[in-house]
């Protein structure tokens, strides 16, 4: 009798174990299936860009390259005079000249604003903050017309205006980056105990001293999060770039890539190599600093 009971519980346990294992297999299968979905476009991007022109044929587009060729990359970078298209090398460097200063300036502004809004609250700062934040949600179409008008009236070197220049683009990115960078820094500084600030005030530190000796040294993770966020959004921006710059010599990589891909004379392998070149810097940041990327993402949703 007792024997019977124990065997039946044993089989029951075996069955639940079996069910559990089945369930685990199903979970991993689903996760892998999704992973394939996310990786397929990148797989195609990589195999196509590694193919030589001779190998690019529509019927074999999903096949692995038989030889390893970097010709597509050099063609995408340098362009081809006889085929009549420009390379992305110039645009890539323009994006560097744009994204690096814009990112640094944005982070500095955001840090100062965040410090004031977190530790030097004034009357009305609780109203001011959401008014600032609204600026990061607006569709930029609603400011493009006056932006172009104003930029073309601000004088710049060589008798030009800021319109059509990289500094003009930097200005736009820094100004419209104020809300998000301020938000991230404010939340970051708000989490630093006010007691620390008060203690240093008693030691005689003024508004600058508190920032220099207390807040700033603790800010590194905040700076990393903000700079990753700004760098990614400036590098990937298309709307401002396409509106403010019209000459190919100053256009950033997104505009260059869009022009390259839009012209029907450029082969697929060159287009894909160009896409990979355009995506590489932000992908690299993501791979190296993924943890901070994620934090920026969650911080960007206000209460994250």
């Amino acid at each position, binding site marked *: 009798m007792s024997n019977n009971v124990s065997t039946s519980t044993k089989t029951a346990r075996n069955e639940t174990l079996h069910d559990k294992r089945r369930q685990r297999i199903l979970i991993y299968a689903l996760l892998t299936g999704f992973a394939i*979905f*996310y990786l397929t*476009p990148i797989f195609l991007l990589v195999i196509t860009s590694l193919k030589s022109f001779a190998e690019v044929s529509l019927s074999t587009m999903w096949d692995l390259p038989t030889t390893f060729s970097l010709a597509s990359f050099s063609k995408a970078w340098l362009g081809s005079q006889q085929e009549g298209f420009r390379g992305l090398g110039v645009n890539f460097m323009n994006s560097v000249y744009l994204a690096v200063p814009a990112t640094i300036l944005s982070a500095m502004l955001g840090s100062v604003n965040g410090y004031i809004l977190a530790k030097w609250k004034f009357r009305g700062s609780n109203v001011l903050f959401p008014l600032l934040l609204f*600026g990061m949600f607006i569709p930029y179409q609603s400011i493009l017309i006056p932006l172009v008008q104003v930029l073309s009236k601000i004088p710049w070197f060589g008798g030009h205006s800021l319109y059509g220049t990289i500094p003009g683009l930097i200005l736009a990115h820094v100004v419209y980056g104020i809300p998000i960078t301020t938000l991230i820094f404010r939340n970051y500084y708000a989490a630093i105990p006010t007691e620390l600030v008060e203690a240093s005030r008693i030691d005689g530190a003024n508004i600058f001293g508190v920032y220099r000796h207390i807040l700033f040294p603790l800010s590194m993770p905040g700076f990393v999060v903000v700079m990753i966020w700004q760098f990614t959004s400036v590098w*990937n921006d298309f709307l401002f770039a396409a509106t403010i710059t019209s000459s190919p010599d100053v256009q950033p990589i997104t505009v260059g890539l869009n022009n390259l891909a839009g012209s029907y004379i450029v082969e697929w392998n060159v287009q894909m190599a160009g*896409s990979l070149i355009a995506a590489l810097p932000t992908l690299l940041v993501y791979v190296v600093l993924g943890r901070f990327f994620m934090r920026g*993402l969650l911080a960007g949703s206000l209460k994250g």
Partner: protein
Amino acid sequence: MQRITWERVVSILLISPSVLAIAVFVYGFIAFTSFASFTKWDSLIPDFSLVGLSNYQKLFANPRFQIDMRNTVSFTILFLALCLVVGFVLASLLDQHIRGEGIFRSIYLFPMAISFIVTGVVWRWLMTPGSPGLGDTGLNLLFEKMGLGFLKWGWFTDPMVWHIPAESGVGQVLTAIGLGGLASTKVGISAGVISLVLAATWQMSGYTMAMYLAGLRSIPDELREAARVDGASELQILWRIIIPLLKPVTLSVIIILGHISLKIYDLVVSMTGPGIGFSTDVPAYYMWDTTFRGNHFARGAAIAVVLLVMVAVLIVPYLVWSSRTEAEL
């Protein structure tokens, strides 16, 4: 009462450049765009004579704009629904103590680091259907090779618009009660929009996954255990406990992705353009096209204001709500 000290003055001085910049570049510029939308400005030379609401009247009567509104609404609904479902499923799966969780998470999230332009270029190639002469290409070719040929279709080159046919039963009822407009191509979803949604979901669903995963991790295990002890089934736990507790996350995701999807522009430019019969056109695209290519500044300004109002309806209550809840703390 606060005493006015030199530090207080300095603190205001430090933040004032940013406040001034936002006042001019956001609020001032919006005011200017709104003003321009009431004028006759229709060429490179500004003409600021006022015409009242006529730009808006013309816009809402404009067939291209009507299609754009249909596309932007159907895109937003479909995109949000897909991102929420995919993100929630992925987060729930990843929350089961998965080996290699970090790797899976990185794979689902990496498209967020890429620009919409790159996404558009790659997905355009994936979704180029091929032709009878040249054979299948892209995903159609992949489906064919995998024996899934029934999945092949024209993607964004298909001019199809799914809608309630006027001659169907539902359509006749709608016509009878004076809502015949609902049973026409003016309310529906185009094949082009579906193609855009798939690419956009590929790019953004990782964000939903990350948000939900953070939300799931903040629900204590004891809560689920207690419900299990009380005899609740796993499905009941999901519906009665987990989904209600994740409501704030869902709300945040809807706000963030909703405003992104109303503004979507880059992806349309690089992937499809306005499409056949404007099947992938959206207000953001029309605005840029008509303003900076066509020099119809007043019309562009009117489209921009409509876009802004749509986004504001979504965002303003959220901003007010989050600043209030914060003030209570």
